[in-house]
């Protein structure tokens, strides 16, 4: 593999002119990685795997799918029933969306716990938030394509979010629809964008990886590598670790594909879209539930009506992540050395789960109260707690180096 040292003349010839092998060697073989990465560092490569899985299965599904309001539902049913292994490809794709979000959310919370967004990785983090936004748009538009009841009414509700914008809201919504309501033009443009956006995600992922490789991975200790004793080459150590994690992940993913393919979906979406009847309950896919809860929880705020306030908070819940590197004033990255932040991190996890539960239930009774409190905490955590905590909290002493912490006895060179 080591291209510059390889004896293979063809590889040397190519590499002299187009240094792909040197590049791979540099980014995989030589690429120094902290020696103490835990399994929480598996989820970035798992997300990459899911992106490829979704694109590959999606390309095959697109060969049979028909983006027309009269034929879309039947064409998806045909894929499930008549196309060779169509059921498998469709279930891989359908459940793939959920599993893509599972690994991405774990990846994000990993970053929050270990302070992976801090100097010098702010742009790396911001690119990640952009990927998250693109994923959400792609998943939403993909969910519309089967043209079931939830597809149609989900599309109606989400596009109507924009009607909350004063003055120009209605014009924007009409522009999004390309008609008087969600209809054939909407379906066609969603299909076009659902095919396009994953490739935009690929491009942003490339930037994400370039930014990552500039300073290398953060690590559970959150301290910088100080020398060769703190690093091991990415290959074979982390390629093997990633592959083992992938194996465990695939077992879980396959269990859903083969045994619980519809567990994460909504049965309403097996009813063809009917613009005259709204289902008794409109619920987005589970991965949007916390955001959905925020949308519904917000009451009137002064002169801002509840509808607009909800939309502002919905977008604000992602927007706040963009400025997170500057909201968190603590210079210490890892929560291991931040005794107070550590607990508030888990409060945030519980808070987001609580929002998810509220999003899954009708906004009535205690769910309204819990939803509002949880929404309040979400913004309190990022906007007030993190700036203050960095100033008030007394971090634990940091180890001298990764090697010193890992090897206990001191940084003896293991290479």
């Amino acid at each position, binding site marked *: 593999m080591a291209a510059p040292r390889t004896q293979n003349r063809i590889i040397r010839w190519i590499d002299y002119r187009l240094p792909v092998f040197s590049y791979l060697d540099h980014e995989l073989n030589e690429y120094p990685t902290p020696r103490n990465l835990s399994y929480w560092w598996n989820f970035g490569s798992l997300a990459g795997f899911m992106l490829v899985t979704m694109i*590959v299965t999606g390309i095959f599904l697109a060969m*049979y799918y028909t983006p027309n309001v009269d034929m879309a539902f039947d064409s998806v049913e045909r894929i499930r*029933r008549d*196309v*060779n292994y169509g059921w*498998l490809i469709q279930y891989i794709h359908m459940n793939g969306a959920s599993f893509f979000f599972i690994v991405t959310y774990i990846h994000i919370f990993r970053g929050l716990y270990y302070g992976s967004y801090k100097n010098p990785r702010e742009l790396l983090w911001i690119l990640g938030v952009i990927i998250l936004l693109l994923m959400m748009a792609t998943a939403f538009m993909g969910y519309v394509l089967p043209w079931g009841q939830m597809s149609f009414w989900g599309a109606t509700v989400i596009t109507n979010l924009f009607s909350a914008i004063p003055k120009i809201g209605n014009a924007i919504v009409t522009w999004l629809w390309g008609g008087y309501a969600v209809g054939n033009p909407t379906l066609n443009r969603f299909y076009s964008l659902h095919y396009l956006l994953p490739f935009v995600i690929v491009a942003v992922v490339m930037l994400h990886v370039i930014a990552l490789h500039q300073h290398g991975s953060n690590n559970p200790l959150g301290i910088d590598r100080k020398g060769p004793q703190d690093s091991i080459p990415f290959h074979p150590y982390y390629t093997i670790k990633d592959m083992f994690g992938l194996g465990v992940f695939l077992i879980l993913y396959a269990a859903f594909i083969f045994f619980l393919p519809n567990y994460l979906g909504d049965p309403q979406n097996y009813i063809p879209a009917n613009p005259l009847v709204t289902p008794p309950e409109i619920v987005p896919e589970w991965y949007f539930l916390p955001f959905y809860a925020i949308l519904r929880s917000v009451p009137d705020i002064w002169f801002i009506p509840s509808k607009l306030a909800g939309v502002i908070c919905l977008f604000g819940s992602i927007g706040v992540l963009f400025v997170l590197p500057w909201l968190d004033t603590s210079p210490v990255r890892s929560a291991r050395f931040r005794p107070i932040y550590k607990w508030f991190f888990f409060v945030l996890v519980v808070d987001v789960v609580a929002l998810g539960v509220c999003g899954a239930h009708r906004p009535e009774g205690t769910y309204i109260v819990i939803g509002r409190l949880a929404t309040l905490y979400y913004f309190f955590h990022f906007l007030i707690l993190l700036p203050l905590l960095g100033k008030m909290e007394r971090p634990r002493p940091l180890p001298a180096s990764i090697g010193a912490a890992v090897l206990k006895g001191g940084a003896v060179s*293991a290479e």
Partner: protein
Amino acid sequence: MAETAQAKPIGAHGGGEGTRRDFLVLTASALGAVGTAAIAWPLIDSLNPAADTLAAGAPIDVDISKVAPGMSIRVLWRSRPIFIVRRTPEELKLLESGKMNPELSDPDSKALQQADYARNWHRSIKPELLVLVGICTHLGCIPSFAPQPGNTPVENWEGGFFCPCHGSKYDLSGRVFRGVPAPLNLPVPPYNFVSDSVIRIGENPKGSDFDLSSVEQL
């Protein structure tokens, strides 16, 4: 983790015998290859005709009572044009005489372009009724039916099927002439007589298991 520091360096193993590491690399690679193949095959196979596409290729019944001698009709079966021709007694006499055989590429239908029950001078079950897949064996165009000898569509035309794309010529049994680009006779699909006035295209007469996909060229 403390052990890693004292552990033997990676790759340190004795002699030329297989090591634990070799075993793990081989088994893991083999599993990876099997897994890749296991997911590649469903994707590849999904491009083959779907169940409903195949079901739409079931046999069809065609009423031939209105097809007068000298007349030809076309029906579509499995997305392919099927020619049904009722030949006149004069045309049959000419075919039976074998007068044109020296000009034909494969007058005895030796190439597998039809079932055994159509491997005869009239290339059909009943001599007068001809059933063909109307696709030129050259490059897939549809030949036109031109039963009258004369100077149309080309000079010294002897009557039969003429392909406008590259000038391939077939006689009134769908046998290809020599010296034209098409290599083989027009294929005969499986068919049988449900009654005197109805034929079923896509199904053999009892006792035959001819499969259209087994012909040399469609």
